[in-house]
């Protein structure tokens, strides 16, 4: 099992969700986050006072998947989240040790 974490542009969320549903991903968790990468922040100016905003709003998306889904999930996120401009985000993949469905007590791939 794999845990896929993707940081994407907020306005791309719907497209990514649709792409993941289409390939059979059962659920994702989404968090509004702020961060910085290579994309520069912006400057806000209030009367004379200048504030540099370094942290940009992004969406963090997490999906727990079966190992054999990994390539198609990465491809789906890559395609749907891409604009080609700086700030499109990143995808992180990690091994997932255990999954438990709280309602039934199922464990492992059954619980995904």
């Amino acid at each position, binding site marked *: 099992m794999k845990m896929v974490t993707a940081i994407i542009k907020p306005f791309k969320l719907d497209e990514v969700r649709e792409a993941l549903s289409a390939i059979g991903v059962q659920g994702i968790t989404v968090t509004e986050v702020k961060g910085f990468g290579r994309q520069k922040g912006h400057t*806000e*100016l*209030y*009367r*004379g*006072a200048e*504030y540099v905003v370094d942290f940009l709003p992004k969406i963090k998306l997490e999906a727990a998947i079966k190992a054999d889904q990994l390539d198609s999930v990465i491809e789906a996120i890559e395609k749907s989240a891409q604009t080609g401009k700086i700030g499109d985000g990143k995808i992180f993949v990690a091994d997932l040790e255990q999954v438990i469905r709280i309602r039934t007590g199922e464990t492992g791939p059954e619980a995904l």
Partner: protein
Amino acid sequence: MKKFIALFALLAVLCGSSAPAFAEDAAPAAAVATTEAASAAEVEAPVAAPVPNKGDTSFMLTVTVLVIMMSIPGLALFYGGLVRSKNMLSILMQVFSIFALITVLWAIYGYSLAFTTGNAFIGGFDRLFLNGIFDPVSGAVANGATFSKGVYIPEFAFVAFQATFAAITVALVVGAFAERMKFGAVMLFSALWFTFAYLPIAHMVWFWAGPDAYTDADAAAAATATAGWLFQKGALDFAGGTVVHINAAIAGLVGAFLIGKRVGYGKEAMAPHNLVMTMIGASLLWVGWFGFNAGSALEAGGTATLAFANTLIATAAAVLTWMGAEWLLKGKPSLLGAASGAVAGLVAITPACGWVGIGGGLVIGALAGVVCFWGVTGLKKLLGADDALDVFGIHGIGGILGALLTGVFNGFAMGGTGIIDYVNNTIVTTEMGPQVWIQAQAVLTTLVWSGVVAFVCYKIVDLTIGLRVAEDAEREGLDTTSHGEKAYNL
């Protein structure tokens, strides 16, 4: 309790200090009283007291309500949007409570000290607790003078209209020391500064015997001798450039210096928390300002419409010039810039609105947008004070600009209205050079008087209850630490 004792002590000092002034003026005051009595007898014997025009009375009540609206919620929201969300309620509360406090003080002694005969610097106690305006036996309300002979408004209308001016002036000051002053300190300072700065300046600039006293040259001289010091000099301030804006702005600037910068100023982001509120506030100010400026004509006539038109047009010009300057120099035209430009234009046209033509008004508004933009950027850096909401940059600089330009554009040659010669019942022009010098004297008098009084008042407050909240409280925000509530429970 300490505050009350302090207040009473100040009242006592005030009574004591003005007693000799009464003595000095006793002779002329008595003379005026007898002539007044004689002329009143002449008028009253054949005909009943003149009845104010119902249109004028309705007009004055309406414009008074407009000025209340520009204070609460207008000014409160304009300021509130500019502070951080943790201090939103503190600024709303300060403006709201000051409005109430000054209104009460106005009724008790403020109106009397500002608008009754005393000496050239402060009025007397004839109207203490608004005494003598309402006659319970006859049910009659005394008449107040306007700027036209034989035209009167019920004195209560004038009392209420001027009360709103006093209240908004004191409320304007809080923008300079926003986000860090103790609430009790704000209240005590407001009461003190109102008493020793607002009332004398209002008396000096605006108090006079009214046009009916100007029957011939001798009577005019006698009447002028009872007027306020700057009025006697011929200073023109239609709706309060000196009395309201310069007065409040310098008091704010002195406060910003004395209280010190906000914790984290220049290091942490202090961006306005809600510019939507600021835009609503600025718009309410603009709408309310028609009451402020047109209402200062004291009757619904041509002068009121001139003031109205100038308030509309000059302000629009200021919005455009501030926006243009910002676009050109900083790269983007901002909403905050446009809203600030509107307030700058309103401030600058305030002293001029009934004294200059539309052309003059346009120039004043256009210049105000650019000069006040410099006031909140270049000048602010030069001064180095944390004038949190730019009270001096906008109200001080706009007020000074408007006051001086009133002298430039009042004369006939510049398309202005000139001034009324009440003895000959004609309109005469003013000369630009001398009039600008008179205006400058009014500006300097206000800056020095209000600045010095504010300094002493802050020191008194600092020594009694302390000016500033604890650093922890400031970091947490005044809403929870001073008022025990939050603006946004989302």
